[in-house]
């Protein structure tokens, strides 16, 4: 069972996260943070982090481009974590069984919110005609309501009434339909691949394919090595008590530093090249002024 105060906090968070994503974008609107919050509220931070991590990877390349709706990975994470903890469904199963369907259904409520705000836009037009400055601001800020409610209503209702249903599903997946439960678990492990493939479509892979190979090969070698050393270490501690060394897994942050170094080299090279052909920044600025005529219009818009 999910207690009323848990439902209340999670519903409030569901409303907050979309406003955060639209405005300050603090990363508190990310699936991995949603997993952390929901895990803490439900009393199992680890399950929350695991679900949040899988969903985060799945949507890695899915951004909001030009105002298109994207799948609501955060609401999916909230519900998957809450039900996984309350019904005893395995986290990896909950990703495929709950997070994915919820996230894709909730595209519809996102579209609804964007439509609802058109009404406020017309009210603002009227207020402009009437010089009603307070009215403009009021109807603008009212836009927060459709946004927040589009997340709060479905998440709140699902948390309040979905528990029993999900518990039954979890039970079936663990017993008579185990093949499906295992399949969903495997799917949960494969789904991050979708995020990576989307990201590759979005990035200029053809131009930078060499870095894709570098990143894959470095990490593949290191992660195999680190993994083998960990296995060895665990085996050694069983053999002798004198062996106390502790081995960690491969740090992704370390790989990010290597990636950053490559990026920094490329940046320095391209700016150095540009400066040498243009004779430095001073002339660059002068050239920029030439492109602007007296009225301040940009005649040479190279951006």
């Amino acid at each position, binding site marked *: 069972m999910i207690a009323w105060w848990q439902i209340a906090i999670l519903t409030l968070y569901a409303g907050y996260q979309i*406003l955060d994503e639209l*405005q300050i974008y*603090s990363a508190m609107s*990310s699936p*991995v943070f949603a997993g*952390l919050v929901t895990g803490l509220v439900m009393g199992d931070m680890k399950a929350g982090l*695991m679900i949040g*991590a*899988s969903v985060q*990877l*799945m949507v*890695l*390349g899915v*951004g*909001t481009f*030009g105002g298109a709706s994207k799948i609501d990975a955060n609401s999916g994470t909230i519900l998957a974590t809450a039900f996984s903890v309350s019904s005893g469904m395995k986290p*990896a199963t909950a990703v495929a069984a709950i997070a994915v369907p919820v996230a894709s259904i909730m595209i519809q409520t996102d579209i609804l919110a964007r439509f609802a*705000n058109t009404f*406020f*836009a017309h009210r*603002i037009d009227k207020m*402009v005609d009437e010089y009603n*400055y307070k009215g*403009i601001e009021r109807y*603008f800020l009212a*836009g927060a309501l459709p946004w927040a409610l589009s997340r709060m209503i479905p998440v709140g209702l699902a948390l309040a009434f979905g528990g029993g249903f999900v518990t039954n599903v979890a039970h079936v997946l663990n017993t008579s339909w185990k093949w499906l439960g*295992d*399949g969903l*678990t495997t799917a*949960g492990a*494969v*789904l*991050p*691949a*979708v995020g*990576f*493939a989307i990201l*590759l479509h*979005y*990035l*200029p892979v053809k131009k*930078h394919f060499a870095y*894709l190979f570098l*990143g*894959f*090969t*470095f990490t593949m070698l290191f*992660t195999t090595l680190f993994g083998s050393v960990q296995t060895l270490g665990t085996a050694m501690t069983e053999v002798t008590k004198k062996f106390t060394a502790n081995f960690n897994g491969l740090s*992704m*942050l370390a*790989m*990010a530093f290597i990636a950053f170094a*490559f*990026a920094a080299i490329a*940046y320095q090279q391209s700016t150095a090249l540009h400066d040498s052909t243009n004779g430095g920044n001073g002339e660059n*600025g002068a050239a*920029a002024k030439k492109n*602007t005529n007296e009225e301040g219009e*940009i005649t040479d818009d190279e*951006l």
Partner: protein
Amino acid sequence: MMNSKKPAYKLTDKDFRQINRRSLFGFQLGWNYERMQASGYLYTILPQLRKIYGDGTPELKKMMKTHTQFFNTSNFFNTIITGIDLSVEEQEGIAGEETVVGLKTGLMGSFASIGDSIFAALIPAIFGAIAANMAQEGNPVGVFIWIAAQVAIMVFRWKQLKIAYKEGVSLVTTMSHRLAALTNAATIMGVFMVGALVATMINVKFAFAPKIGNVPLDFQKYSDMIIPKLLPALIVGAIYWLLGRKHMTSTRAIFIVLFVSIALSALGVIAKG
């Protein structure tokens, strides 16, 4: 036209703070299908417009109407356009309307694409991957590293308004090369990280081990001998191809992957690693 009346108001630091506050905490609240961020643009600069043109004047109404027209750009770069816009409006007043409209429509597209690729795709991808990597082991520290990075970006968003206001239109030309170089460097980092992620974050292995005679043929062992992490690389390659098909959306791809994985798992070909 009742132009040539140059406004006398000069923007102060207090104005910049107000615009930044409104932009950071309110810019996209009014987002809608019809005119997208238009009402948000008006909202962020409304107090300043009132100061420049004066309450109740026909100029103010004209400019308020101008600023409720369609607008959509990256919400990480919108105040650059606002800054350039206000520097024009402050000097030219209503006579600068055409310039302002040209500026806004000319700049919003390019800033949208750079902003989306850096701030909506690459940074969340890189920091999200680091956070997810740590989270998989039950460690929430990565999440806070990401939040710290976003706070640094908020500082950057706060600073850019005044720079854009001071430099005016020339900023765009001086900035464009550096931005292009930065985007290029950031995409290199992105591509490298995707390679790293493929090698670490897809935990599936071959479960397929048919018996040939009496010797079981352990597929995973042989694929590891060719190259470790072969299966994850093949999966990403296959989905990459799938996404390039006609009528394919990311949501459809997710469901196809979901069903194919369940089928392959049920047939005993792959399993969670």
